[in-house]
């Protein structure tokens, strides 16, 4: 089975928005979106269960995404496709899903996996847009995923409890962060990652018209940013061995014990 995994580079630590450009400040170190490690892990498990097939990473993002792709390669993915283009900056859902769909179309994978959400955008929506463009079935929030006889069975949680859904391949699935425990790359994996195939594609190479990418290709926009109202009288302490007492005192002060 050929599995494509969509992974995103997100800012390390706490994200902030650049007040000038009104875009996410991506100047710091990049990290692999933690939720995508679950998708990579699930792909590796599916590949290794059958002992055949390929796991291909697909990412749209700035040059820094290279490092992030290398981390996922070190976990065990086979190769990476990086869509990188100055003009793709500022892409919203419409533009991002179009570019990713173009890259995924080229791969023709049997299964396309997504993480639960991007830690910076918290959208938890991209898969549905990509699946619509690829005209493939989509199932999200997968807490369990099994594959047998060319068919997927997915258990997922909604507002009402657990659903079980079946989908034929090829399909698009977004996994929850409880589906597995992502492995840490081994030293061998880290060393090996450098020599794995990593392809960088421009939008032109994917035949994406410039007006369908970046801000021109986006249908939403940001008008203004503001600080949220400060939370009154919020305290934070480090546990020096006395935190339990501090909590008790606080609860007593609030008349909660």
């Amino acid at each position, binding site marked *: 089975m050929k599995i494509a995994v969509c992974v995103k580079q997100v800012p390390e630590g706490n994200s902030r928005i650049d007040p000038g450009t009104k875009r996410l400040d991506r100047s710091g170190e990049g990290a692999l979106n933690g939720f995508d490690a679950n998708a990579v892990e699930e792909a590796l498990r599916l590949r290794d269960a059958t002992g055949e097939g390929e796991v291909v990473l697909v990412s749209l993002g700035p040059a820094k995404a290279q490092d992030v792709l290398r981390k996922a390669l070190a976990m065990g993915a086979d190769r990476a496709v990086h869509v990188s283009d100055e003009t793709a900056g500022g892409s919203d859902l419409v533009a991002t899903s179009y570019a990713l769909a173009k890259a995924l179309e080229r791969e023709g994978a049997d299964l396309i996996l997504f993480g639960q959400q991007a830690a910076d955008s918290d*959208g938890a929506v991209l898969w549905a847009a990509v699946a619509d463009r690829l005209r493939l079935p989509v199932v999200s929030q997968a807490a369990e995923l099994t594959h047998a006889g060319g068919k997927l069975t997915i258990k997922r949680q909604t507002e009402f409890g657990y659903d079980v859904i079946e989908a034929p391949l090829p399909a698009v699935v977004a996994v929850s962060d409880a589906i597995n425990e992502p492995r840490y790359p081994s030293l061998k994996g880290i060393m090996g990652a450098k020599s794995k195939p990593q392809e960088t594609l421009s939008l032109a190479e994917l035949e994406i018209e410039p007006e369908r990418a970046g801000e021109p290709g986006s*249908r939403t926009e940001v008008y203004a940013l503001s600080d949220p109202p400060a939370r009154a009288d919020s305290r934070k302490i480090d546990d020096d061995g006395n935190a339990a007492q501090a909590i008790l005192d606080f609860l007593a002060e609030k008349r909660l014990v």
Partner: protein
Amino acid sequence: MSMLVFLEHHGDELLKGSLGVLSKAVALGSADVAGVVMGFGVRPLAEQAAKCGAVKVYVADDARLEAPLPQPRVDVLARLIREKGIETVLFGNSVLAADVAAGLAARLEAGLNWDLADLVRQDDRFVGKRPALQDSVHVDVGWKSEPRIALFRSGSFDPVETGGSADTEDVTVALEDFSTSARMVDQAHEEGEGPSIEDAAVIVAGGRGLGGPENFTLVEELAKALGGAVGATRAVVDAGWYPYSTQVGQTGKTVSPKLYIACGISGAIQHKVGMQSSGVIVAINKDPNAPIFEFSDLGVVGDVHEVVPKLTELVKARKGS
């Protein structure tokens, strides 16, 4: 200024979240707010929408829409929106609604703004209010073209019953092959009786930071000492550590106890929406940058395995004295 609200149902009821969004649409002053219900045997639901101010309810009633799966709904909505020239489409967030909204955005090349806490009209344009980056910044967002699609954060609006009646209109159900290839094998039904956490005055909730199901005894003991109930995050419920009936958040329960103690919980937005209206929030987390600290009254950077048992002993000692 035509507006369409996606009306989701479960059993014989429209969801409170959908009706809240409908009331919001009405409050925006639009004279022709329509709703759309999709499912099988759903015609009677139109009346509930009329009570909250819909003047028109589109009904897609078809056996192929019985299971709450997103893709057939995208097919129906895309056609309806094009045919009627609808300018703005509003969704209350849910697992189903998010997938429908995003599929629709791609299909119609339409802008989608998600996680909105509010929508206002300013100088003749719509502005969405979006708390972003763990609510550390408020962003005013907009749409560059029509239709505009908005997905509202759970619990943003309460339904307001204004009374009234609505015209209903049946809509065409023509589905794509790929839209019907995923199949519901077993649909969620309300899980059996569990401990009721919705009425608890104190909730002690545990997350993945507890490290394993066996450590839930730590939160259970603290809850017992405080006379409260135990809550959990989706991560630990999905992992089978604790029952779904105790889950707090977007796909679990919405609670507002006097006191909420979060143990080893990161504070993801989907958890926050279920507990943010608690009276006092105390968080214990070993990561000083955990988002939960952004909305806690008292945050303790520490290890739950150290702090929680000590706190339990102190509470017991105080109560005993």
